[in-house]
């Protein structure tokens, strides 16, 4: 089990039951579990959606779409059944927050799913875990079984006359199915490629029915919002960025881990105070602030609040909240290569710019890192990434292009240092370091 970290600046809302044994349903109930859903039943869908809107909660998967608004798009009347779908396909490199939720607080996911279901009038919820989280499936399945045993799930929940069922499912190991429509394809048993939008899932989603699909953290936050009230939750964060968020700080820091910080918390403070600063007192080189798809920030750029709007203004993205900290020993080209290798491997291949673009980026950056490139190749890499950006079927192409453009733009010098047969200037230092370990 991962070591839980803690810091006084944290505001524990979604993570408040972490480490308290809440996988046990009795413990969960003792910690105010399944109260929120009963309140939600009592007050009804309109109240739920109003509270969600008031909470300012924005999707925690990375796109940051206001959750209450998303729920309100689901048509009230529908010929086809409506569904709630929990996106637990947490695959963005640098991101491991949903993992902790499934591990420590599975009932919060179930309860959030139920509340979303009541809000939109769905009778069935799916909790979809990434294929690599298969070992967490047992925990989730046990939680679901316990909830059924208690009569919390199934027919006539809490005597409300409402039926609600929950089904768990895992993927087969594709990053692409983290994209909501690809996830629905996967869940339906098809090849995990995204769908054309519109129609959006709220109108035509899983099995053609109106579907609310939310990230696991988003869903796990819902019961807390119901209990504390939307406004109180909103006040924890900044304007239009309500509440708190789980930030996974990894890389070259003294105390890596997942911290729940208020939205808008300063990134520099998060790295230097919360995570204890750069390991071994080394110099900070760069920060990838919200999962590997977000454009890199230099050490000079990190004095910025961690919310969707401030990060956007800073020319990058809040993304999935996975902050990767890179110190001076890192070769940015190698990091760019590792990043593009991931996207090349994970591209579903459906559209040309992503399928071919990620492949050629990987080849070109790999050659450059090995010293086999000339000046023109740096421009080619940037040209290639720029011609992927905004041209692909789904955001995966952007996710590969954006960081690449960022690396070339902000660290061109490091790319140039590799050219004309020179190869990686950090190779020697890295080998020395490896020998010491």
């Amino acid at each position, binding site marked *: 089990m991962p070591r839980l970290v803690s810091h006084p600046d944290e505001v524990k809302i979604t993570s408040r039951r972490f480490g308290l044994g809440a996988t046990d349903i009795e413990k969960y109930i003792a910690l105010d579990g399944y109260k929120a859903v009963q309140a939600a039943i009592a007050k009804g869908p309109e109240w739920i959606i109003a509270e969600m809107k008031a909470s300012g909660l924005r999707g925690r998967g990375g796109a940051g779409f206001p959750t209450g608004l998303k729920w309100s798009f689901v048509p009230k009347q529908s010929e086809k059944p409506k569904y709630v779908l929990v996106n637990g396909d947490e695959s963005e490199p640098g991101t491991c927050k949903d993992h902790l939720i499934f591990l420590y607080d599975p009932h919060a996911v179930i309860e959030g799913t139920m509340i979303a279901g009541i809000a939109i009038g769905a009778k069935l919820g799916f909790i979809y875990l990434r294929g690599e989280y298969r070992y967490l499936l047992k925990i989730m399945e046990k939680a679901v079984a316990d909830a059924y045993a208690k009569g919390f799930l199934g027919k006539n929940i809490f005597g409300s006359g409402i039926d609600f069922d929950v089904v768990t499912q895992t993927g087969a190991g*594709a990053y*692409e199915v983290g994209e909501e429509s690809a996830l629905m394809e996967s869940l339906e048993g098809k*090849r995990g490629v995204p769908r*054309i939008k519109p129609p959006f899932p709220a109108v035509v989603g899983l099995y053609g029915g109106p579907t609310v699909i939310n990230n696991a953290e988003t869903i796990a936050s819902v019961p807390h919002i119901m209990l504390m009230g939307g406004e109180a939750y909103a006040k924890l964060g900044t304007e239009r960025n309500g509440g708190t968020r789980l930030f996974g700080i990894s890389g070259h820091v003294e105390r890596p881990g997942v911290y729940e910080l208020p939205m808008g918390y300063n990134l520099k403070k998060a790295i230097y105070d919360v995570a204890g600063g750069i390991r071994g007192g080394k110099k900070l080189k760069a920060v990838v602030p919200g999962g590997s798809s977000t454009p890199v920030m230099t050490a000079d750029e990190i004095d910025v609040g961690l919310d969707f709007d401030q990060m956007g203004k800073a020319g990058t993205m809040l993304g999935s909240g996975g902050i990767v900290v890179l110190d001076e020993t890192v070769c940015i080209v190698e990091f760019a290569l590792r990043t593009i290798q991931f996207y*090349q*491997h*994970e*591209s*579903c*291949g*459906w*559209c*040309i*710019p992503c*399928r*071919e*673009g*990620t*492949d*050629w980026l990987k*080849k*070109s950056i790999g*050659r450059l890192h090995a010293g086999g490139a000339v000046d023109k190749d740096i421009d*080619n890499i940037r*040209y*290639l990434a720029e*011609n992927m950006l*905004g*041209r*692909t*079927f789904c955001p995966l192409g952007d996710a590969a292009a954006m960081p690449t453009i960022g690396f070339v733009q902000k660290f061109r010098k490091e790319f140039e240092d590799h050219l004309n047969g020179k190869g990686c200037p950090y190779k020697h230092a890295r080998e020395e370091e490896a020998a010491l370990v």
Partner: protein
Amino acid sequence: MADVTFTVDGKKLTAPAGTLLIEACKAAGIEVPAFCYYPHLAVQAACRMCTVRLEKVPKLQTACTTPVTEGMVVYTDTDEVRQARKATIELLLGNHPLDCPVCDKGGECELQDMTFKYGAGESKYVEIKQHRDEQQWSPVVYYDRPRCILCYRCVAVCGAGMDVWALAVESRGARSVIAPNGSDHLNCEECGMCIDICPVGALTSDTYRYHTRPWEMNHVATVCTHCGDGCKTTLGVRTAADGSEIIRGNNRDKSGMNGDFLCIKGRYAFDFANHTERLTKPLVRQADGKLAPVSWEEALDFAARGLREARDAKGGKAIGVIGSNRTTNEENYLLQKFARSVLGTNNIDHHRTADYAAFAAALKGHAGREASLRDFVTAPAILLLGNDPTEQHPALAWQLRTNVRLNHARIYVANHRDIKLRRQAKAAVTLPQTGYAQFVEYLAGKDGAFKGDDATAAFRNAVKKEESLLIAFGSEFRGRDIQALVAFGLSLPNVKFACLGDYANSRGAADMGVLPDLLPGYVPVDKAAQFAGEYGNSLPAEPGLDLVQMFDAAGRGELAAMYVVGANPVARYGIDAAALKDTFLVVQDMFLTETAVLADVVFPAANLYEKAGTVTNTYGDLQLVKKAADKAGTRADFELIVRLAEKMGAAPKSMVPFGRGVRADVGQTRGAQSGEADRHAVWLVAHHLELKLSPFDPFAIFDEIQRLVPAYNVPRLNLLAGNDEHLKSELVQIDTGATRRDMVLPANDGLYTSGTLGNYSAKLKEVLASHTTVTKPAETAAD
């Protein structure tokens, strides 16, 4: 939907709201390139070639997914758009093998054209291209994986279009490939639609690959010679040592009734024309009993003499004539004219695969009640009784599937078999094999006629509720059953019918009077006054012998001579060779068939791809056949009939009224490499005839057909332009009277057989063998 107005590249355009931008642009003559988009298949938005700039939208948008809206402002040709397309092509070319100089598709490749247009002429990538070995998926389909640009059109057409689902994408990302359902081979209907739809040379056909370059071929649009659907096909023809050979069948202009569709036979089974056993010299049986090649004049003289002697000695009643399902209308017409006016006999018949005569009689007085093949793709509801279109009428099956897919047509299937089209059916009923007539009675309201259940009752109610219905029926219906079915149909509003028969011109053979009791247009032989006037002879007024009776008569020694044109009754009807021992037999065919081998004279005949004329498909759609190929040493049946008639003493002009002011169409009959013109010229001059219209020109007789068979009097210009003309007026003008023997013998051909013709198609036989081979279980190792 209401029209909306929008602007593309400064042009104000109007289109119905909801029209896809890519289609709206195309309609206005603005090209928006695309690889993955294909009309009438699901939008994929995978290739990103069709990106355009929309005003007030931050990113470039795909025109294939964007419906036009009021006031939309679109730019399709800005620097930004051109750059996006260029970058996409650069990416595609990154791994593309660029083996264009040897690629089948070179010269007609969409990737080449796009590269040329957007100028992605420089390679930005120096890494090694991904290579994967080519695969053979079936006797006809090859997949050259590196050439594939993964547009998924093949997957879509095979799945949604064909309802076969034999293709899918395997692996992911840059390693993605198209893979067949049998892991390394295809388990499918071998239609080749995947090859046809491939924008590059990734999918190629065994019959065409590495044979030629597209620009070395002439492309001749004609009609498929196989089943009764009459698909328009484009034959790629190239000069060969002995004429000109067909090297490709495809569907280039897509203007035919079949739309995008061609089946395996239309696409590959033209190879019979080049079969090594093809006859190219006339054969005459010698004193030693063996057939030996002789000159044309010798053979013609010999055949004419034999027929004349039989006629003069025993009269026309002692001569039989058997026509073909695959010759043109003009040939069929001429053959019956020859039989009746020169041989003096009504003993004429052909292998009948559907009871067209009864169908025509049932529709007497109901003009316009026959459905065209085109109707099946738009009709809101179709009742299919009997037949298995997937196997027997692949184009009809395509139309029905397309109609269901695009228009949600309701198909009602009643069949004794579990036919594949049930998958598209709104309702289906299983009948006993002999229960069709009873079922129609039941549909008409006679509850006791058929033991139905709730489902059958629901089927009947649904059919009766339809406000517009097409009824297609197979050879399960004949004679009175057709009459009853038509009567039932006519009791419903807006019904049209289709009678499904088997071969390219089975319908034409019946319409043209290749029948013992009926003249062209189903005029009873005893009411032939009009014909007698035209033919200038006294025509036999007694119905003649039908096909089976003729062979019975031959067996009794009562048939002195028989003339068989393009048919193989001996094999088809299992005739004992001994039955023909006393009959002088003249056969015109491509091959030494089971029938030809018994003949006294065999004339090597041209096939439907080697001649001009018209054919009528089973739905009554009349189409132009153009001469595509040419085989030295063969002659068209039309010419042979004229020559025989002349040698028997008939004036050519009385046979083919080429002097009666008919002008048109000289040249239509001649293919690009035809040597006919010279032959004609010599013959014409020898007979002091004008050069302007040959008596061997089928169109010289078309006027006469149009005059005597009013239903065929369709707009001629449209027909000559290569368009199908549906017969609209009723065929039967005069009551055909008493019940007749229907003599229907269904061909029972499937997708991979085509009667005698199929026996000489190596490709069909190969596919058939591959589809009937039972895979042996892997041997278990001995302990």
